[in-house]
């Protein structure tokens, strides 16, 4: 996507959902727009239903944690197959209050992707029809992809490796 097109897109988002955009960048030629958390649902709805932009296809939805580890985020990859334009919508929020409206009412396919994000990061999608763990066991009480849960230290020596050659 070119810078011109990105400017047009941010302009039309600003026109329809005022004050929603936090920043818009173009890393590796991929339009990336960061949206304030309060406006995320409105913006997604606008992008899908607007006649000009019509991002009708949700390619991917996933979570991430910001570098300072104090915030969680959700990233949406949208695609308009007719004009072949892709856009990445990001939002972020406090790790202690990870709540965001669901996108399942816009794209039914967001269902399992949101469940996966909840499973890994503990993001609560408000209004999701069936928000429970999907890949991990139901009894798990942590959100494993958060940085506060590191992988096991490979140098640890307190484990008896008589039975399991480590």
């Amino acid at each position, binding site marked *: 996507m070119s810078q011109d097109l990105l400017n047009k897109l941010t302009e039309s988002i600003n026109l329809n959902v005022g004050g929603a955009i936090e920043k818009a960048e173009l890393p*590796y030629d991929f339009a990336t727009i960061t949206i304030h958390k309060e406006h995320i649902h409105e913006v997604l709805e606008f992008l899908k239903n607007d006649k000009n932009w019509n991002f009708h*296809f949700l390619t*991917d939805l996933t979570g991430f944690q910001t570098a300072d580890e104090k915030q969680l985020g959700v990233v949406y990859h949208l695609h308009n*197959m007719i004009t072949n334009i892709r856009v990445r919508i990001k939002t972020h929020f406090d790790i202690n209050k990870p709540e965001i409206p669901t996108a399942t009412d816009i794209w039914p*396919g967001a269902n399992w992707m949101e469940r996966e994000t909840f499973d890994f990061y503990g993001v609560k999608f408000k209004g999701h029809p069936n928000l429970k763990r*999907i*890949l991990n066991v139901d009894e798990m009480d942590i959100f494993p992809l958060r940085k506060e849960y590191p992988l096991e230290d490979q140098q640890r020596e307190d484990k008896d490796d008589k039975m399991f050659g480590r």
Partner: protein
Amino acid sequence: MAKKEPIKNTDDFVEEKEYSILNLGPTHPATHGIFQNVLKMDGEIIHEATPTVGYIHRAFEKLAERRPYNQITTLTDRLNYCSSPINNMGWHMTVEKLIGAKLPKRVEYMRVIVMELSRIADHLICNSVIGVDTGAMTGFLYIFQWREKIYDIYESICGARLTTNMGRIGGFEREWPQKTWDLIDAFLKNYPKALQEFANLLERNKIFMDRTINCGPISAEMALNYSFTGPNLRAAGVDYDVRVATPYSSYEDFNFTVPIGTSGDTYDRFMVRQEEMYQSMDIIKQAIKNMPKEGGFHADVPDFYLPPKEEVYNNMEALIYHFKIVMGETDVPKGEIYHCVEGGNGELGFYLQSDGGRTPFRLHFRRPCFIYYQAYPEMIKGSMLSDAIITMSSMNVIAGELDA
């Protein structure tokens, strides 16, 4: 529980329906993988299905956060293990995009050959398994040896057959031996005949057609809403192919047709995959014909591509590069990348956040199976149990990719 009187005549049957619960899976011979579906059945009609996934979840996204970039290839092998080379190449291309490597045309053409071969392997397994599930075992047994022949080609390139770990960031690990080219030539020469016989067995077979037409259909609109990609979306009538929409690895140089279906049922999915195999062979032929003679088998990226062993022993610079790559100490630029390739069953995407360190800060695999399997309960609602089985095999759900 109160003891029931035996039913004397049919008038004694209660009007109120009682559904039976059937647990299909997790290890069921007909599901070809570990999927559990709890079905609420009325006789043989499925009323409701609740799928449970995650039986072989291996936390790849977490593991990837500790591994250097060149060690993640082995994780991608195990996503869709029917077409591992596509996953490998997709991952290499993602990293190359991040570091800005420019590849010789020859490497890109070699990659196209490997990716199309693995697409054939993936599709032929899927299609022959539809045959098995409808009761035609012969086609499966007959066509399966051609997958072995494709695996022989992989073996001559990289030494492995199933989980290939093929190629390196920047190209291939070595020049392909003459044997590889001979095997590819032999495959291209003999496979169309075998595929034609397989097609004769099933494509216009009355029993097969009755069994698969209108079985597990999905409309184009619903398929788009459920984020379908790949042959399943094309069978529903949407001509979206990543190779055409966002060409990678020089796919824009090739001339091929994207087959599409109309009704999105099992028969259309079968036919789309059949035609794609012919198209893939055509692409391989074009790639061999137009293959540039010059260019070598790797790009000039010393930070990521291992130097030849003789140089490591005799040359200080090469030794340093070798050490840094093996220890995974090469830093990459900061950035955010989404790269997608047309995998065996859809758009396989890699979303990578790099903070400049030796490992990815966040890596997410967009796994087509995981995304379209959620539409499965909707697709089988109201159909017979046996239709549900062939719907699943025609969707080509691969457990490794589903659970990551």
